[in-house]
């Protein structure tokens, strides 16, 4: 026993990597669907993943429990239990046919750190908790961050009633089956007291191309972009014969929408030139196949619109431009843009103190410390919005995310995991 511990101390670095590789491999084996990874929110794949991580944590001698949200919590108790704990982790569910690292990287990095501390006999002053959260992905119920939202009493009755996108069962039933205390969630009760968490540190793959393009293995996140969305805007013009109607008599819904998008693109470019953070996308667009035709001026077009930014001010300013262009083009071309309900998702700023600390940590490791925004949403946003100082560490990854080709280099992962471990050690000491 003593011999094993001494050995584990000297071999600790490779043990950490071995542990990580072992867990990634076993997760991939057990939750692969043949094409990619499928760990359904509150479903069997996710539960298997939680069980696997729990088993490994116990094998490392760590204490584990399942909280009221059915999330896995791995703890390293501190000397002073009255102090708020440092929390780390991420989610363990995936999209259908997704990648193995989305979410799992954050959980495994946290487990590596806690295992190392345990094997060293390091007892921190304040406790450290690793969360393997359930239900982050919106792919299954159309609602993102269900697990973290449930922790802070933010799931509405509507949310709990949303149907599973395949089998139609309401979220509340699937949560109940997974062991969530749904009555408390339905009452909007906080399952976790924000005051009991000193900080939330989340490692996650970038899921984008920036770190690859900038040659950065790891980066610190400045904030998580919020968004304003319209799922279905209708441009109503007037249908007509494409050959007979002169330009000045047309109310062409496609040309009007094309002009709107072009103008918005120019505004976007200008705002970027002036230093604002913004991305704009129209992901769904089309004429009605039941009525469109080659020789028919389209009288109707439906499209989606989404703007994301770390700044609410930028979002609102861009939205004002959007509304004014809809009105202007509407008047000029004699069309109408009918907007459906506006959907908002608030941006979340990461904690300034933690950003500085993590950047200093990267510099101490001899790595570049460039900060970048997170375009994708994460549980860290929910923690931040609950008033918990939160931070994210991005790990470079290849081939994007939410697809089976999602990739991540172990060398990059190890750097991120090392930064997390150092930061946890310093903060909890």
């Amino acid at each position, binding site marked *: 026993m003593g011999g094993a511990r001494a050995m584990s101390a000297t071999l600790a670095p490779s043990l950490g990597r071995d542990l990580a590789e072992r867990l990634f491999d076993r997760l991939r084996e057990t939750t692969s669907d043949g094409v990619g990874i499928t760990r359904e929110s509150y479903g069997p794949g996710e539960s298997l993943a939680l069980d696997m991580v729990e088993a490994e944590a116990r094998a490392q001698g760590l204490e584990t429990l399942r909280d009221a949200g059915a999330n896995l919590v791995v703890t390293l108790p501190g000397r002073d239990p009255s102090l708020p704990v440092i929390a780390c982790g991420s989610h363990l569910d995936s999209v259908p046919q997704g990648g193995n690292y989305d979410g799992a990287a954050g959980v495994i990095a946290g487990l590596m750190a806690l295992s190392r501390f345990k094997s060293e006999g390091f007892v921190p002053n304040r406790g450290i908790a690793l969360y393997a959260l359930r239900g982050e992905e919106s792919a299954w119920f159309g609602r993102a961050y269900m697990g973290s939202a449930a922790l802070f009493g933010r799931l509405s009755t509507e949310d709990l009633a949303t149907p599973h996108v395949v089998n139609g069962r309401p979220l509340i039933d699937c949560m109940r089956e997974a062991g969530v205390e749904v009555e408390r969630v339905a009452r909007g009760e906080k399952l976790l007291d924000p005051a009991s968490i000193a900080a939330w540190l989340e490692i996650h793959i970038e899921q984008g191309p920036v770190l690859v393009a900038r040659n950065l293995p790891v980066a610190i996140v400045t904030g998580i972009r919020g968004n304003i969305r319209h799922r279905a805007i209708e441009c109503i013009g007037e249908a007509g014969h494409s050959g007979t109607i002169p330009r*000045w008599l047309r109310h062409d819904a496609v040309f009007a929408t094309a002009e709107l998008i072009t*103008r918005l693109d*120019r*505004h976007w470019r200008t705002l970027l030139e*002036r230093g604002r953070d913004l991305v704009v996308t129209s992901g769904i667009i089309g004429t009605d196949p039941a009525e469109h035709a080659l020789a028919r001026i389209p009288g109707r077009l439906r499209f989606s619109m989404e703007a994301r930014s770390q700044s609410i001010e930028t979002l609102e300013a*861009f939205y*004002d*431009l959007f509304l*004014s262009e809809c009105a202007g083009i509407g008047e000029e071309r004699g069309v109408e843009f009918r907007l459906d309900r506006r959907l908002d998702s608030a941006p979340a700023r990461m904690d300034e103190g933690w950003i500085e600390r993590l950047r200093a940590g990267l510099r101490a490791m001899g790595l570049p410390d460039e900060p970048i925004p997170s375009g994708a949403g994460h549980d860290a946003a929910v923690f931040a919005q609950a008033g918990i100082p939160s931070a994210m560490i991005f790990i470079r990854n290849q081939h994007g995310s939410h697809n089976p080709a999602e990739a991540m280099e172990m060398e990059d992962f190890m750097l991120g995991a090392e930064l997390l471990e150092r930061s946890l050690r310093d903060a909890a000491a």
Partner: protein
Amino acid sequence: MSGASMARLLLEGNAVQVSHGQPFILAAGWASPAYIDCRLLIGEPRLRRAAVALAAEAIRANFAGAPPEAIAGAETAGIPWAAWLAEALDLPLRYVRKRPLGIGRNAQVEGGSVEGMRVLLVDDLMTDGGSKVAFTRGLRSAGAVVDQALCLFQHGTFPGGAERMEKLGLSLVALANWRDVLDAGGASALPEADRTVLERFLADPIGWSAAHGGRATLLKPAL
């Protein structure tokens, strides 16, 4: 006087085009047998110098009581003319977009502030005044006092222009119009056949437009 001079410059620069077949469809759908391209004058140093001199003289003569403090060129073709005029009159230069780009009071104006300044709007052409509305609003949003405008050529053939200028409170000086072109053009500059077509058009521009596949009425209100 300046009308004839400006018209001669346009004819010399081959800026006047008359079609006997397919009409030109101008802004807002008006059909016209005639097209003026003032941009062709930009290319010729002698012609542009002469046009700028005429414009500067017109500004001094018409706006002596309240001289402009800055010249703003209407994008795009108005910008070079505004630049040469600003140089000739030793005045600050700005340019104004047709619509805002980005956010803020100055989203339509480039070149500096126009806050509280009397700004003279310069464009090469005027058809129905629609674009002048957009330019004036952009300048006023940025705090400029805009009640003076100048253009090299005013079509004057299609309705809405005068009403728009009045509603805007914009005093527009045009160096030349179609009448000036007809009066100035000798047989070599303006062939008889072209002259005939133009006379017919000028007698009833709306009717001509309707008869040649263009707009027949002013469907939208003036502003």
